[in-house]
């Protein structure tokens, strides 16, 4: 099975995430779309890991460790990001990203 299938799937998932970030105004949905993009990249990295393992490289497992660290960072990022969104909601009673214009002044 060609690895291109996985590349195309990852690109499609990534672009759906980009579209979500551009099309929505709810900060939580935008955050979820960022998670979707992260996962598209993770999937591609795992596919490349298998590709190089099948080609005989002995250190192909490093890519999976890298994906593991991306998951670690994503978990930390979600904790802090959701705390920020909750704080914004508490101050303005909305999760609309246009509210964040107020940070300008």
């Amino acid at each position: 099975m060609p690895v291109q299938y996985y590349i195309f799937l990852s690109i499609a998932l990534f672009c759906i995430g980009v579209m979500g970030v551009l099309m929505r105004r709810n900060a939580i949905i935008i955050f979820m779309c960022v998670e979707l993009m992260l996962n598209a990249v993770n999937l591609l990295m795992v596919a490349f890991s298998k590709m190089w393992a099948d080609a005989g490289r002995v250190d192909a497992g490093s890519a999976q460790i890298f994906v593991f660290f991306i998951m670690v960072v994503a978990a930390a990022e979600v904790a802090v990001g959701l705390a920020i969104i909750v704080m914004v909601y508490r101050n303005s009673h909305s999760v609309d990203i246009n509210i964040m214009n107020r940070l300008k002044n």
Partner: protein
Amino acid sequence: MGMSLQQIIFGVLSVISLVSALGVVLSKNPVTSVLCLIVTFFTIAGHYIMLNAQFLAVVHIIVYAGAIMVLFLFVIMLMNLNAEIEPQKRNWLKYAGAISGGAFLVVLLAALREASMPALLPGSNDIGLISNLGKTLFNQYVVPFEVSSILFLSAMVGAVVIGKKEN
């Protein structure tokens, strides 16, 4: 049709993950978006199993479906968001976003269509098993592993400080 079982499973999982990813973006109700994203994450875990990354598949389900999405669901239900009060962008901005994303998709697909790479073999290998990954992690990547624990600690402190009610 000379399709192998692997390709059939790949096709089914891909269709489900793309449809549910579109559901995340297009659904009006935030709770539906979260549920669609959970379905996407489960199909991605299925892809991981197909790619001999068994440990990562389990970690992915535990971390994403078990922790992150529950956090999202908690926050959405805490704020009592629903389709009626969902903020909507103006229509032309939505079309502009969809067209830009689609153009990005077309460019990337066109750029990588002709790329030549080694194929994925149907057999399985054991790089994704926990013993091999553990050896790699604790031999080559001990320092990043320890740094990530500091990252978690600071993220936890940061989340508590930000989320605390000031009085």
